[in-house]
C-alpha cells in the first residue's frame, strides 16, 4: 500500500482506477481519461494533487537563499502573491526538480514534485545551512486543482466571502493565503482555474461541495494529456539531473540578469551557452495515424537516430498524436519518429499545442 491522500476514499466512491504514482495511491481515471480531459477543456474538472510537496521558506535570508537555490530570480516577484516557475539545478546545470514559488508575507511558498520529495528536501536543507532562514514542510495541506473555462465561476460558489475576496483579486499566475487556505490561480492544464491548498481535514467536505457545484473529478491520466497539450514539462520524462534547462525548453526560466546574482548551476549554464547548446526541445505533431510515445527514437534524416521523444500521447483536443522531443539543434521542419520499427514523418512545431481550449501552434 502506498501513501494515501485525504481524498482516497472519495476517489474510490467515484469509481477511480487507482495506480501507484511516486509512492502514492492515486486515481489514474474515473472511467474515461478522454472524457475527463475534454471536461477540463470545455467546462471544469478537478484533480487531487495533495501528493505534491509544499515547503515554506521564511526568515531574514529567505530571499537570498532562493536567489541562490534556483535558476529563476525571485526578485521578479515584486509583490506578494506573484508566482514564478523555475528549475532547481545541480552544479552541472542538471535539473534536480522543477517547482513553483509564490511570494508570501512573510517569505515564500515553494511547491515541488512528490516523486522527488526526499532528494529535494535533502538538497534544499543542505543549501539552507549557509543561510539564516527556515524551511517548513506543510504535509498537513491537501491540494485540489480546479481547472477549465468554468472552473473559477463554479469554485466561487463554494467559497466563503473571505475566500471569494482573495480569489477574485488574483491575476493569472498569482496565489495568496486566506486563513489556513492558500488559493493560487495556477495549474498544469493550459486552462484558467485555481490550485487550492487547504488543511487535510477540510479536503473531503470541499471536494464534495465542488462536486455538488458541478465539477467532476479528473485523474492523473487526463492531467498528463492536458499538460502535454499545454506544452508543460513533466519532471523525470522531459528533464532530469542529466539534462540542462537549455535542452528542456526551460531557457525562459534561466535568469542570467542581473549578472552579479550567483545561483547553483550558473557557471555550467553560462559555459553551455557559450559553447553552443547541442540539442533543442521541440514539439512534434503526427499528421498521420498512430501515437508517438516516450523513448521512441527520433531522426533528422530518417536514417540515423539522433534524438528522442521525451513525452508523447494522443491529443484528445486535436485528435492526433503530439509529442515533446529532444533533437539536434539544427532540426528543420520535419523529423522522423521510429514507431514500432518504421520511421514516420512528424512536423516540428513551437509549443504549446493548446491554450484555453484552442489549438495554438502553426
Amino acid at each position, binding site marked *: 500500500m502506498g501513501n494515501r491522500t485525504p481524498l482516497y476514499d472519495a476517489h474510490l466512491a467515484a469509481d477511480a482506477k487507482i495506480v501507484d504514482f511516486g509512492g502514492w495511491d492515486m486515481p489514474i481515471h474515473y472511467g474515461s*481519461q*478522454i472524457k475527463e480531459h475534454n471536461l477540463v477543456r470545455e467546462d471544469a474538472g478537478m484533480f487531487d494533487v495533495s501528493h505534491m510537496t509544499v515547503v515554506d521558506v521564511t526568515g531574514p535570508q529567505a530571499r537570498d537563499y532562493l536567489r541562490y537555490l534556483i535558476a529563476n530570480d525571485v526578485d521578479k516577484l515584486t509583490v506578494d502573491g506573484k508566482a514564478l516557475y523555475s528549475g532547481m539545478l545541480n552544479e552541472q546545470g542538471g535539473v534536480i526538480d522543477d517547482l513553483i514559488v509564490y511570494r508570501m508575507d512573510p517569505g515564500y511558498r515553494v511547491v515541488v514534485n512528490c516523486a522527488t520529495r526526499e532528494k529535494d528536501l535533502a538538497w534544499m536543507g543542505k543549501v539552507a545551512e549557509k543561510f539564516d532562514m527556515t524551511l517548513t514542510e506543510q504535509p498537513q495541506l491537501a491540494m485540489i486543482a480546479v481547472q477549465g473555462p468554468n472552473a473559477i465561476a463554479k469554485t466561487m460558489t463554494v467559497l466563503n466571502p473571505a475566500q471569494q475576496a482573495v480569489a477574485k483579486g488574483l491575476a493569472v499566475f498569482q496565489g495568496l493565503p486566506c486563513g489556513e487556505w492558500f488559493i493560487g490561480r495556477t495549474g498544469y492544464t493550459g486552462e484558467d482555474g485555481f490550485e487550492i491548498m487547504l488543511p487535510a481535514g477540510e479536503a473531503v467536505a470541499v471536494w464534495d461541495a465542488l462536486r455538488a457545484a458541478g465539477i467532476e473529478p479528473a485523474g492523473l*491520466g487526463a492531467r498528463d*494529456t492536458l499538460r502535454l497539450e499545454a506544452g508543460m514539462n513533466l519532471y523525470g520524462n522531459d528533464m532530469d539531473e542529466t539534462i540542462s534547462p537549455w535542452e528542456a525548453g526551460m531557457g525562459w526560466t534561466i535568469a542570467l540578469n542581473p549578472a552579479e546574482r550567483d545561483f547553483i548551476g550558473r557557471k555550467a549554464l553560462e559555459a553551455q551557452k557559450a559553447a553552443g547548446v547541442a540539442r533543442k526541445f521541440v514539439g512534434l505533431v503526427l499528421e498521420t495515424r*498512430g*501515437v508517438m510515445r516516450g523513448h521512441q527514437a527520433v531522426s533528422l534524416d530518417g536514417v540515423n537516430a539522433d534524438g528522442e521523444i521525451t513525452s508523447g*500521447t*494522443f491529443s*484528445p483536443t486535436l485528435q492526433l498524436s503530439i509529442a515533446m522531443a529532444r533533437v539536434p539543434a539544427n532540426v528543420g521542419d520535419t523529423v522522423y519518429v521510429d514507431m*514500432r520499427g518504421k520511421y514516420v514523418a512528424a512536423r516540428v512545431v513551437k509549443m504549446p499545442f493548446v491554450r484555453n481550449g484552442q489549438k495554438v501552434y502553426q
Partner: protein
Amino acid sequence: MSNIPANLQYVASHEWIRNEGDGTVTVGITEFAQDQLGDVVFVELPEVGATVSAGDSVAVVESVKAASDIYAPVSGEIVAINEALVDAPEGVNADPFGAAWFFKIKLSNAAELDGLLSADAYAAECE
C-alpha cells in the same frame, strides 16, 4: 473480475474467438483487455484476403496509454474486417464482445479450436 462470456473461447493474449459454425471464427479483444488499455484512439486492421498463422501479430490497438498488438488466435484467411472501428475506435471500450469485433478468419485447421481457452481457463489467466 470483468465480464467473460461462457459461449466464447479465448487466448492468453486477451483475444476472444467465436465459432460461427460455418468454418469461420470472429475475433475481438476482451473486456479485461480494453480495461487495461484505457481509451482506444486508433485501430489498425489486417487486409481482407491475408493468410495468417496462429500467433501472428495482425492488428494494432492504440490507446491513450499504449500500443498493443492483436494476434491471430488461429490460422487461416482473413475474410472480413470491422471497418467501423477505424472511424469509431472508442467502440472497443464500449462493446468489446459485440459490435467491436475486429476480424473474421476462415479456419485452415479447425483442430486449432481445441487448443483455445475456455471462459474459466481464461478467467484464471487474468488473475
